[in-house]
């Protein structure tokens, strides 16, 4: 198989973009999981009335990370 014809410039660029998108989405997802976990620990250390909201936003961020990862895989 001729790699030059298979990977023309446009396809190579798309492959790089997809690879970067997947890698950055994974990093974002890991970061949001760490942040959510730490927020959960901190709400136990300092228990305020805003605890449910903080947990909800942190979990929403994890959901956003999962969404980004799925979207990047479909690019």
């Amino acid at each position: 198989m001729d790699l030059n014809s298979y990977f023309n410039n446009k396809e190579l660029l798309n492959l790089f973009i997809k690879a970067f998108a997947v890698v950055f989405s994974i990093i974002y997802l890991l970061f949001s999981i760490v942040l959510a976990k730490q927020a959960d620990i901190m709400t136990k250390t300092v228990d305020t009335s805003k605890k449910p909201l903080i947990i909800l936003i942190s979990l929403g961020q994890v959901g956003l990370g999962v969404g980004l990862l799925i979207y990047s895989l479909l690019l």
Partner: protein
Amino acid sequence: METVEKIETLPSSYQVLHSFNIRPKLRFEAQGDNEEVILVVRAHPITQIPWLLNGLIFIVFFYYLNFFLPSFLNLGQIIFVNLFALATIFAYIWFNFLSWYFNVGIITNQRVVDVDLQAVVYREVTYTNINKIEDVTSKGGGFLASMFNFGNVFIQTAGTEVNVEFMNIPKPSEVSRIINNLIYVKKNGS
């Protein structure tokens, strides 16, 4: 001592955008059964302006970046870049908000608690008994600090105990006055 009685009867209030809270609805880990939270302090909101401004600058930057993206990316990729940029800006703002929200100083009728959350992953909680406190110093200086009445409170403890610092908190002199009153009550019993 009249001021001590006043502190004990102060009504619950949330001041300076929740950075100076008297008798808030808050509990902390290792809080004793008879321990009552009197004051909770955070950094003054004005000291959080830099990261809020940075977030705004990032949004403006990514908005203008959209004018150049169509020349070398397809629609799906442009949508991903925008979503990722917005998610990153949100993460940056949320990260800084959590750092501010959980960096608290808690003053109870028995202890002073300093909760530090650095870079979100590093956590330090310092407990100091009121009767171990030797000296309380409030410091404030500079244009913004004078204008918005915020500064630092340094709590020095006896011997090799850890010293406690509350940085950039609102009304530092009032905080030191409250702690001094609590020390007086603890030592004199009235």
